[in-house]
């Protein structure tokens, strides 16, 4: 039985465990039908031209993990940003791990999707927001069909959330192969501000496939900073589908740090429903071996006087492959739009590949839109300059790569996270450098 058939037939079993007499179930039923019709995307589709899922779909994934697995905090501490106080929502093999988590209902809701879907007090928010910005794209539909667990974050108006929220998905490898489909909903109301850090981490070499959907709603004047750390094991793959719906005067930024994993696909979609807002999409990708990272972004400018900023940097070694597909749509009504997109790449090996494709569809006539893409090697004259000052080749290389990625790090607003990312980059580049950029 292939994975698609297995998932479709698993849906019947899934229905036995959830409340089927609710609106959500109608959404789920429709979603599984959509997935059944569309199936997994193939390279024949334009949006998947450079990313093949074949190698990761062949495993016999367990869709509902059987046992609960305990993990000690000390064993996974390193995957947290642990030197500052944070809220934490932690999952082990898709199941909520209360002993590792720190949730709250004190003025804000930082808790579980399963609770939000089932408890009456959340019904209104769920009805207004759940599956309202996620599309009917096949993988998103697949997630919607099985939507049950994940992070639920609701920040009512005028709240400045005083510490970041970490969402951590751990997989233990107790299954031969595991498929997880977390579903997150983040609603930030008027004038509120929140910072979120998300990470997926496999603790074994067993294959893991995560098909995640995150819906983010930034209401009037909301500020949301979302950071994704993707530094997973060699056999862990991630398809991240994130949908952001912004209202007027809101500021939403998503930073994606892709340093590991077998195959990573980021479908990041911004919809600007209002005026005077700002969307930021930044990313640093540093991969090697046969790793594959694909950034597929969409910014849809619907109303006038808004901005978007995209800056993606990629460093590819060995036989690694990268894709950047950045689409910007500016509606006819969206005059005075400022949309900037930049994708710069360094190939460190002859076998590394990057496919970079900007796509601008502009229907308004009074706009400033720019896009730029570069693909190059490390500058030899810069290397000689650094080495002639006594900086060894490896460190000189690392210094140049840091410098290359630096402006993306500048917009990271949590100092401890910035330090952590710096360290991850240093580890990734195989150096121990005594500077802080």
């Amino acid at each position: 039985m292939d994975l698609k058939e297995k998932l479709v037939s698993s849906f019947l079993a899934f229905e036995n465990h959830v409340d089927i007499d609710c609106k959500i179930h109608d959404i789920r039923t429709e979603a599984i039908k959509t997935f059944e019709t569309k199936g997994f995307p193939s390279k024949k589709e334009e949006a998947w031209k450079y990313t093949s899922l074949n190698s990761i779909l062949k495993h016999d994934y367990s869709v509902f993990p059987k046992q609960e697995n305990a993990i000690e905090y000390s064993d996974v501490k390193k995957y947290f940003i642990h030197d500052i106080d944070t809220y934490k929502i932690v999952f082990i093999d898709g199941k909520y791990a209360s002993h590792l988590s720190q949730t709250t209902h004190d003025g804000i809701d930082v808790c579980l999707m399963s609770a939000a879907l089932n408890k009456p007090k959340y019904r209104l928010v769920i009805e207004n927001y759940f599956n309202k910005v996620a599309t009917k794209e096949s993988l998103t539909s697949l997630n919607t069909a099985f939507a049950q667990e994940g992070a639920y974050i609701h920040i009512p108006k005028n709240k400045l959330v005083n510490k970041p929220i970490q969402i951590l998905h751990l997989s233990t490898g107790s299954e031969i192969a595991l498929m997880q489909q977390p579903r997150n909903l983040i609603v930030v109301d008027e004038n509120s501000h929140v910072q979120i850090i998300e990470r997926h981490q496999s603790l074994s070499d067993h294959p893991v496939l995560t098909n995640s959907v995150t819906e983010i709603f930034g209401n009037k004047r909301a500020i949301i900073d979302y950071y994704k750390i993707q530094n997973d094991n060699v056999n862990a793959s991630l398809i991240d589908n994130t949908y952001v719906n912004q209202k007027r005067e809101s500021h939403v930024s998503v930073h994606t740090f892709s340093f590991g994993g077998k195959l990573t696909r980021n479908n990041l979609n911004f919809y600007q429903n209002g005026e005077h807002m700002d969307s930021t999409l930044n990313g640093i990708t540093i991969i090697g071996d046969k790793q594959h990272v694909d950034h597929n972004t969409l910014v849809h400018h619907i109303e006038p006087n808004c901005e978007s900023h995209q800056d993606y940097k990629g460093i590819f070694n060995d036989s690694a492959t990268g894709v950047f597909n950045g689409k910007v749509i500016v509606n006819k009504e969206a005059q005075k739009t400022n949309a900037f997109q930049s994708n710069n790449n360094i190939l460190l090996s002859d076998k590394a590949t990057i496919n970079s494709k900007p796509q601008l569809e502009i229907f308004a006539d009074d706009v400033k839109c720019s896009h730029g893409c570069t693909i190059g090697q490390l500058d030899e004259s810069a290397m000689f300059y650094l080495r002639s000052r006594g900086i060894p080749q490896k460190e000189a290389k690392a210094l140049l790569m840091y410098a290359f990625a630096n402006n993306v790090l500048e917009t990271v607003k949590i100092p401890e996270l910035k330090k952590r990312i710096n360290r991850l980059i240093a580890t990734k580049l195989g150096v121990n450098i005594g500077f802080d950029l």
Partner: protein
Amino acid sequence: MLKINNLHASVEDKSILKGINLEIKAGEVHAIMGPNGSGKSTLASVVAGKEEYEVTDGTILLEGEDIEELAAEERAHKGIFLSFQYPVEIPGVSVTNFMKTAINANRKAKGLEDMPANEMLKLIREKSEMLEIDRKFLSRSLNEGFSGGEKKRNEIFQMAMLEPKLAILDETDSGLDIDALRIVANGVNKLKSKDNAVLVITHYQRLLDYIVPDFVHVLYNGKIVKSGGKELAHELEEKGYDWIKEEVNA
């Protein structure tokens, strides 16, 4: 200190240096002059260890040790410093961070611990004041958007920080106005001692009024064709290079 014997070097199979002989002793200042395309900058790059240049014959000895097999950074650790004709712009790395990294890399090569932060700051302050460098300048990205004069002053600042045994100044005077030239030359003169040496590569005599050489060599077509005292520089300034070319081609 530096002894170059019969040095031949080429880039992409094009022969540029065709048998250079040069000896520089500690405490000396040498100047190499010559027309464009004579191989001056190539000589500087070859001594500093630029990989694109292939040494096809001859030897370069630093304090008796053959350095030909050494990488650029290893030559730097042994005390060779090249002030670039065209310093490279490196956006994203501040002058201060670059200097810290370079100083500590050199200390590490000598088996020393990293320089304590306060000591580093003191050193940076002292040397930047000597070269009349603004504090703001130190937090800017290395050479990015610097004027020609700022770039050259920054090169000599690096030299002051690293205290090399042999400093090679490649066309350090180009792009400098007279005030900047004086500041840069004063910096070099303050760093001069009986234990180190300076090799000044220049097209014009102007810089040599400030950094006075003990010996002047004329490089032409990949060879040193004439050597003399500082008066040779004046003669070249007056008469140009044509008479040298005629002498060689005769």
